[in-house]
């Protein structure tokens, strides 16, 4: 259902845009006859519901997302190339987010109103308020350009490095991803610090924490075995949903660092009225969200005894 709704809405919006993809595809010097020919070739002369039906049929029967209007490359292939870039960005950044937000969130919950807590609060405000592209550009300028510690932008393949590529392999890949990871992590971690802090604070007020102390448990044991185990349950939801969401393309960060990921692919396809490619990215994003929501639900049944699959 969600899937149908998402694809249908994309189609409708695309056809509301007063532009002719065929004109763009046919080239600047094309005659009106030529443009009409291209329209017929791409199926753009049909009403949009016919096009939508064809798109669904192709997807269901052949598992194909169609071909790009512009360069006739299969959309599946475009996505197959761009998805690993976005995935490296998202998973790497998520790992960093946890490395940053877990210690800060927990420590500021343990010492509310302390200096550390206030400093964390300032950081959270910065992380939430500043746009990701600005942080990205500043980091790129300061660390990449001024200090020359990292590349300013660009991406390196880990596997199947193209012949013409100047770099490749795990090291170059990580080296190029450092700034994008940090940028995305800085932006997301703010919310996570806040979330973890309030969850831990809230859990500490529960009666069973007092019970654990009354049993003679040490502060460390009470915190790890009783508080953290409960406080971090909702974090699983947050992580799962965010990964699903971001896999659809972290548009600003990919744009700033010139990463050929799904976000970049989506932006380009919008500028070029390349509906099949755009639709492909949207579908991929929707599937990612569906899959990660499912993973979260399944994980819950495993980590929270109150929820069991029946």
């Amino acid at each position, binding site marked *: 259902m969600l899937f149908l709704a998402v694809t249908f809405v994309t189609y409708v919006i695309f056809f509301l845009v007063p532009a002719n993809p065929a004109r763009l595809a046919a080239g600047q010097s094309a005659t009106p006859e030529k443009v009409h020919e291209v329209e017929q070739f791409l199926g753009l002369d049909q009403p949009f519901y016919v096009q939508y039906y064809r798109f669904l049929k192709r997807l269901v029967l052949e598992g194909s997302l169609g071909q790009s209007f512009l360069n006739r490359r299969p959309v599946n292939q475009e996505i197959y190339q761009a998805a690993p870039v976005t995935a490296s960005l998202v998973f790497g950044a998520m790992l960093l987010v946890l490395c940053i937000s877990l210690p800060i969130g927990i420590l500021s919950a343990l010492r509310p109103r302390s200096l550390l807590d206030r400093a964390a609060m300032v950081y959270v405000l910065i992380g939430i308020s500043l746009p990701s592209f600005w942080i990205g550009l500043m980091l790129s300028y300061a660390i990449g350009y001024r200090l020359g510690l990292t590349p300013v932008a660009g991406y390196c393949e880990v596997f199947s490095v193209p012949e013409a590529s100047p770099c490749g392999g795990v090291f170059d890949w990580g080296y190029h991803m450092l700034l994008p990871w940090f940028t995305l992590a800085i932006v997301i971690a703010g919310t996570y610090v806040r979330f973890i802090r309030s969850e831990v604070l809230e859990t500490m007020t529960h009666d069973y924490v007092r019970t654990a*102390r*009354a*049993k*003679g448990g040490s502060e460390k044991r009470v915190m790890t075995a009783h508080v953290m*185990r*409960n406080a971090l*349950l909702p974090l699983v939801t947050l992580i799962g949903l965010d990964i699903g969401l971001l896999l659809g393309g972290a548009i600003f960060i990919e744009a700033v660092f010139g990463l050929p990921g799904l976000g970049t692919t989506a932006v380009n396809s919008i500028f070029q009225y390349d509906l099949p490619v755009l639709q492909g990215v949207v579908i991929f994003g929707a599937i990612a969200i569906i899959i990660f929501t499912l993973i979260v639900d399944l994980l819950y049944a495993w980590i929270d*005894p*109150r929820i069991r699959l029946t």
Partner: protein
Amino acid sequence: MAPLLEVRDLRTEFATDDGIVRAVEGVSFTVNSGQVLGIVGESGCGKSVTCLTVMRLNDPKFATSTGEVLFRGENLLTASGSRLREIRGNEIAMVFQDPMTSLNPVYTMGKQLIEAVQLHSDASKKQARRRALEMLKAVGIPRPERRIDDYPHQFSGGMRQRVMIAMALINSPDLLIADEPTTALDVTTQAQILRLLKDLQREFGSAVIMITHDLGVVAETADDVMVMYAAKVVEQGPVESIFNQPRHPYTWGLMGSLPRLDAIVERLDQIPGQPPSLLRPPSGCRFHPRCSYVMAQCIDREPALLQLAEDETHRQACHLDEDTKSREAAALLSKIAAGAAS
């Protein structure tokens, strides 16, 4: 013989955003081995805080306590953290008010019981589990071998409270503090839990501090009674003495408002008003705004906790003269007796 627990002039205050709340003011009592002390009073009068202070379970960020809590002569208020952890759950254990929230939802009952054992002994997991099964059987959990690996949400409130009691008694503590253990349960379960506590108390020989707002519970279980009002003790003494010659209007109010199954009344008697805020307690006797015997001196001067002339173990804090008190107490008792007879 030295008492098991002797509390002297205990004061606990909390720093809140609205000011300092003095939740316990000058409370003193003793508990002897194997004895049951009932602490009675309305909600918010300092009963629970008194007991949490004994175990030093108040949040140290907000609470400060002075006075002495002598457990076998050792002052717990100045004891080190590690010494305190040795005592908690091992020599002094506690059963809390709400069994629905007092157990950790993500661990099985067995795991939580085993934790209680292993925190205080080198018992292997197997030994601890065997001990846990014994205790579950002792508190009347049917088929404990099967229930031990269930989670708290799979138990009813009464069953959870049984598990809490099992957890409290698993290391055979010398003192058990039961903080309104039946308040969150329905009436039939309340009776079962009280009977269980009484039986186990006899079996284990633990001393018990039973916090309650139900004088009926006290009458059934306690050896000594302490009545608290607005952070202070207003009357304390042996249970027979308190029930046969209550000397404080607040105690009368509590006794008069006891519901009875054997008497038909339109409305239960009640004490008018509500307990005062401890942020700004009333002047003089703290009960004076609700007391029907209030006199001029009650508003200005705080009554001291004095021994009765005829019974030195019975103490009360009220300005009323002895004759009035005897007369009123006798009238109340005969009224209750008459209610029972009708």
